[in-house]
């Protein structure tokens, strides 16, 4: 194509607090209209903002997680504009002096790590909602969301493809949910991205004119909106047209972006320090206290998983995608190690979690922390496979049973008579019978057709209802058939 794409992302992360950023209004979602809007959120005359200490701690946590600079002093400013769902006629945000500056996030694309530089992260309040479809002649204003705390995270234009942008968004999502500052409910708008997209001919050229795509609230839309925007911009420039700076909206139904406002209509927000709020000072002690409570971060965990458990980067990434999965995995490993020593134990556990467990959780729309099969039971199951009691296939049967009845692995094995037949003499007896019943297969094998051996194994497994150890069956067959 010959064009270099530059993408910067601004992400609004809703902070997981019980009350609003500047008021005692509750933050619960989906309540009766305006019932969660306190007198402050409604901007009634005489009301004043007071800052929620939790949002400050959350911002500090984020600043530490991305290795950014937590400013000792930050200032809340008023961003002035009129809209009916903006009750005060201004949004309290941070402008010249944000709480966090700098820092970076490493993303992984096709097994390559890439650093995305962060410009800043600042605290601000959300607006309410305008509902246009309830009444035929009027729009309705619900201010329940007004004053909900947001952390706006801004990157440098370091991403060069929609894939990188999505990977960044996912990594950021994993991080903010991991460190517990965002509950991550995307349907409720907890995590919304604006993407600044521009293209240029080569890295030597200055950045092209950018257009900002507003309000992308799913990874899928983020990707398709950017893809569309890139194609559109390339089309414009290749046809000799100019691109002018604009804010655009993505229409997912039509898969297109359309202009919301041009640069010349850009708002004059008349920012100034909010005189109702004083400068926010953060002491070194406060930062240290938050640092002490910081969990191990996703990227650290993934790297550690890959290294200490000898997992592939992909598997480690999936297991480290959120704290619950990582905890589940590590707990299972811990429990399993108590039960058995086995060379590939962690890899087998990883396969079970990423395979059977994930599939079953998905099918039942459950989260891993709600799994009926807990790490202790999964560990026991894996240990019974490793010690040869169960074949992998029988393991799956036991897993299914455990999922339903939550019973102990051993009692299921006993109950259902699933114990693998490892007694060689017993297997030899069955092998003998099957060979005599299928002499043509035995002959085929002898004449060099390896497939025939598998057919014989299959018949033996069927005869034992899967309980025979397949490796042993193979070995005995080979001996009996003279190879």
């Amino acid at each position, binding site marked *: 194509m010959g064009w270099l794409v530059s993408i910067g992302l601004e992400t609004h992360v809703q902070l997981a607090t019980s009350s609003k950023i500047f008021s005692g209004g509750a933050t619960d979602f989906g309540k009766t209209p305006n019932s969660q809007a306190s*007198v402050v959120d409604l901007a009634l*005359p*005489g*009301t004043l903002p*007071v800052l929620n200490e939790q949002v400050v701690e959350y911002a500090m946590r984020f600043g530490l997680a991305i290795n950014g600079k937590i400013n000792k002093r930050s200032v809340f400013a008023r961003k002035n504009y009129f809209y009916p769902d903006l*009750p005060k*006629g201004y949004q309290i945000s941070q402008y010249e002096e944000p709480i966090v500056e700098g820092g970076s996030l490493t993303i992984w694309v096709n097994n390559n790590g890439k650093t995305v530089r962060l410009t800043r992260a600042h605290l601000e309040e959300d607006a309410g909602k305008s509902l246009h479809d309830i009444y035929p002649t009027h729009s309705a204003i619900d*201010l329940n969301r007004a004053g909900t705390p947001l952390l706006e995270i801004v990157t440098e234009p370091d991403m060069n493809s929609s894939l990188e942008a999505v990977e960044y968004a996912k990594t950021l999502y994993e991080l903010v949910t991991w460190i517990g500052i965002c509950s991550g409910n995307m349907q409720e708008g907890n995590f919304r991205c604006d993407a600044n997209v521009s293209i240029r001919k080569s890295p030597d050229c200055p950045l092209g004119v950018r257009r900002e795509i507003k309000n992308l609230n799913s990874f899928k839309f983020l990707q398709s909106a950017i893809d569309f925007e890139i194609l559109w911009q390339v089309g414009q420039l290749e046809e000799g047209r100019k691109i002018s700076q604009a804010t655009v909206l993505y229409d997912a139904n039509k898969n297109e972006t359309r202009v919301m406002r041009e640069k010349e209509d850009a708002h004059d927000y008349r920012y100034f320090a909010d005189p*109702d709020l004083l400068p926010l000072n953060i002491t070194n002690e406060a930062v240290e206290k938050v640092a002490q409570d910081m969990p191990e971060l996703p990227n650290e965990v993934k790297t550690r998983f890959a290294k200490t458990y000898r997992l592939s980067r992909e598997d480690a990434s999936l297991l480290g995608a959120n704290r619950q999965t990582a905890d589940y995995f590590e707990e299972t490993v811990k429990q399993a190690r108590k039960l058995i020593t086995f060379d590939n134990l962690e890899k087998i556990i990883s396969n079970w979690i990423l395979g059977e467990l994930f599939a079953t959780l998905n099918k039942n729309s459950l989260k891993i922390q709600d799994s009926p099969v807990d790490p202790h039971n999964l560990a026991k199951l894996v240990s019974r496979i490793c010690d040869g009691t169960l074949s992998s296939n029988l393991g799956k049967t036991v897993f299914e049973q455990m999922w339903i009845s939550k019973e102990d692995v051993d009692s299921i094995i006993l109950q259902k008579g699933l114990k693998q037949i490892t007694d060689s003499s017993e297997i030899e007896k069955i092998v003998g019978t099957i060979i005599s019943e299928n002499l043509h297969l035995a002959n085929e094998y002898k004449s060099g057709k390896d497939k025939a051996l598998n057919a014989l194994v299959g018949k033996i497994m069927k005869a034992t209802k899967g309980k025979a150890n397949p490796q042993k069956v193979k070995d005995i067959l080979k001996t009996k058939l003279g190879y």
Partner: protein
Amino acid sequence: MFAKTILQLSQGLQDRQFSAVEIATLFLDRIEKFSNLNAFLDINRDTSLKQAKAADKRLAERRANPLTGIPIAHKDIFVTTDFKSTAGSKMLANYKSPFNATIVDNLQSAGMVSLGKLNCDEFAMGSSNENSFYGPVLNPWDKEHVPGGSSGGSAAAVSARLVPAATATDTGGSIREPAAFCGITGVKPTYGRASRWGMIAFASSLDQGGIMCSSAEEAGLIFNSMLGFDSQDSTSVDRPPENFNRYIDKDLKELKIGIPREFFDSNIDNEVRVAIQAALQALEHAGMNLIEITLPNSHLGIPVYYVIAPAECSSNLSRYDGVRYGYRAEDHENLTEMIKKTRSEGFGKEPKRRIMIGTYVLSQGYYDAYYLKAQQVRQLIINDFSSAFLDCDIIAGPVTAETAFKLGDKIKDPLSMYQSDFYTIPASLAGIPAMSIPCGFSSTGLPIGLQLMGNYFEEAKLLGVAHSYQKLTDWHTKMPDGIS
């Protein structure tokens, strides 16, 4: 009876010479009788009498404090659940607040009985009370003259003894100027002392609630219940409670009174100058030392103020859009037009003028030259006071260059109106406590006010000096004719 001081009323209530209900009734009758002053915007007899009854119960049960049963009225900038809260504006004509201002609650908890809401300039913007949507307030000393503003209703009501004390607010002089024009005592505490929760905002970094009454001692008594830290106001200052009257009986002889050279320029009316000089001499007689000081940047007060106050007000008044409460324009083609018409019809001339100036000085390309610059010059004005207070304890000077002007004299000329606050604005910009006390009359019988300013959080000392002056003189006991 209406001429009694708060201390006398308090004593009488404690001694059961009269009841809180009797006092409330007496003052409510006076409010009705002198309604021509246009001082009150809302009263509610039943509510007030209910509060008075509760006060009587407290008095009977000996759970009272010195303010229990004393009537008060509130500037209509403080929101109240019992009365309408209009801010003197059409915008909030029928607005009923779901909560009380902290100051209102504080005084109510002390047992004070609310008699109603007082007229003021729209959103506290003005120096004559002529900017009220509900009409001007008349000066009880001469009904052809303004009572001052923006707390004109509060000043006129206290001066005519329609209520013994009234809350007020001061952004650039809105307590001190009307107190001077109406011959009463008006005090603005240090910025951050009085909670701004429930005080309808004009300019947040300047607005400060205060009190109007008949003497410094009364003010101190009320401050003891009214002021204090409020966790609902981020700019409220967290300090231990104190007795604001602790200087009343102290020997203040060694105090140094600073006289700013710049406050006695040629603009000052001669009768005012003479009265102020006499007052300063009285302080000297009382044993205090007068020293000349300088506030070299005080002339920059008005320019700085008319950048900062409009800037903050342009943003503070953006919430009045006709969506959630207040006035909404009738005919409109769409949402944008609805909001624009609402704001154009709901605000009077002065708020509109200030919103326009404020919007301009904050807009792109002008912010540095105006707003940022003003905040820098404001620092110079603060520095003036800091150096002055190294040399003196209290600063004294005039409140205004002249006595109350005539209704209609300045309303057509905003600039000359703005000049009325020349001497009061510097203390507002610095956030220091300041007050006005009566110190004489013009030959036409209009009151003259002496301004006293103190260092940050030194209200007690400030009130002490004012009290020692009021012990020596009787200006503060004078009442206008025709209020019996």
